[in-house]
């Protein structure tokens, strides 16, 4: 299971509390996790990445294991600690504004 921590506003939209746990089929890439997340919570489609291009929205970031994965290709496999559930994947609303 992949543990995912959503930012406050997306937890509210998805009506979840705490972490989300997702089963991912095949290689546990960022794209596969986002596909699984949106499949379970359709309200999040378009909120994290563009619906058409699947590009990350500019003020959303992906962190895990103290690494910023935001600029990694989405087909890159997630860190082993995330795959093994030892660490969560963090989806972050970036700091913006004052």
């Amino acid at each position, binding site marked *: 299971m992949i543990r995912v921590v959503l930012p*406050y506003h997306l937890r509210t*939209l998805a009506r979840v509390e705490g972490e989300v746990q997702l089963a991912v089929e095949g290689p546990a890439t960022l794209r596969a996790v986002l596909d699984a997340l949106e499949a379970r919570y359709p*309200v999040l*489609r*378009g*909120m*994290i990445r563009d619906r*058409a291009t699947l590009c990350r*929205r500019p003020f959303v970031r992906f962190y895990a294991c103290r690494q910023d994965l935001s600029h990694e290709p989405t087909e890159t496999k997630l860190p082993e600690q995330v795959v093994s559930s030892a660490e969560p994947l963090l989806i972050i609303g970036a700091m913006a504004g004052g």
Partner: protein
Amino acid sequence: MSSVRALIGTRKGAFILTADGARERWDISGPHFAGWEIYHLKGSPAHPARIYASQTSGWFGQLVQRSEDGGKTWEAAGNDFRYDGVPGTHMWYDGTQHPWEFKRVWHLEPAPADPDTVYAGAEDAALFKTSDGGRTWQELPGLRTAKGHLWQPGAGGMCLHTIILHPERPERIFVAISAAGAFRSDDGAQTWTPVNRGLKSPYELPDPDAEVGHCVHRIAMHPSRPDVLFMQKHWDVLRTDNAGELWHEVSGDLPSDFGFPIDVHTHEPDTIYVVPIKSDSEHFPPDGKLRVYRSRTGGNEWEALTRGLPQRDCYVNVLRDAMAVDSLEPCGVYFGTTGGQVYVSADSGDTWNPIVRDLPAVLSVEVQTLS
């Protein structure tokens, strides 16, 4: 007994204000969608318990929310706003062409007779429509062929902020875009004509005959007289008596003809309201006095309405979608400010009272009159 429900969109959520027909004691619910920008909420005329809300965020994008119980509970509807085909380009600030990019929905306009049909005005400017209650949205792309390559964003963004559906002829629709101008369709949004003749924008547009490029801030119509429209432009208050074929200025004796909202009295088609703002450089009322101006003659002759409004040290703005009227007798007039106040006048503007003083900056005000 009649009651009213005011739908308030703010920078940090939606608020719903309800009162009986006296409009003196108000219940306030909210914030709904706390922390999100709610650009606009509007109820279906055919089914007033059905309310649509435009929920948006610079981080997470656009949602349309839908309520079936007058705003007590909400469900997310569709949020897939895609321009039809290849989006094309419009004029950018430096004179080059720039691709159309969807940013948010500024205005939602439910159809008069069908609660599942809603028009949405978007930034970058385009008109969308749903026929299934907001689940799916389709662009009506004919609008952007009306010289869309010459449209240019104003400082607030290139937004389609006004949608007026003709009360008897569903094929006739008016929209207004900043900073492109006013447009009319007579065939159900298939084709569009710029209707900006008579508008003068010498400071922004050197070409006196420019068909598009005018910074229209708001248009209002009285349903009993659908060929008469009133406009608050960037500068100038204008009127047309022939559905936009020709506009003429009716700013008259206003202390400033810059402003954002304009609205029409429910029972008096020649009584109109504006809120003069000092200038495009200073977005606050002249002399620090918040004054609504009313004309009972369809323009030109204006009276200041001050009773109950702050007459010193007031430096708020009133945005284009932040004024509304109810249909009670006497007509109620409402407006919200960037300082978070929502004011009501239950006597057509003669006296004003704050319903609430400390909301986030108000983006929009709509009012439903319920029986």
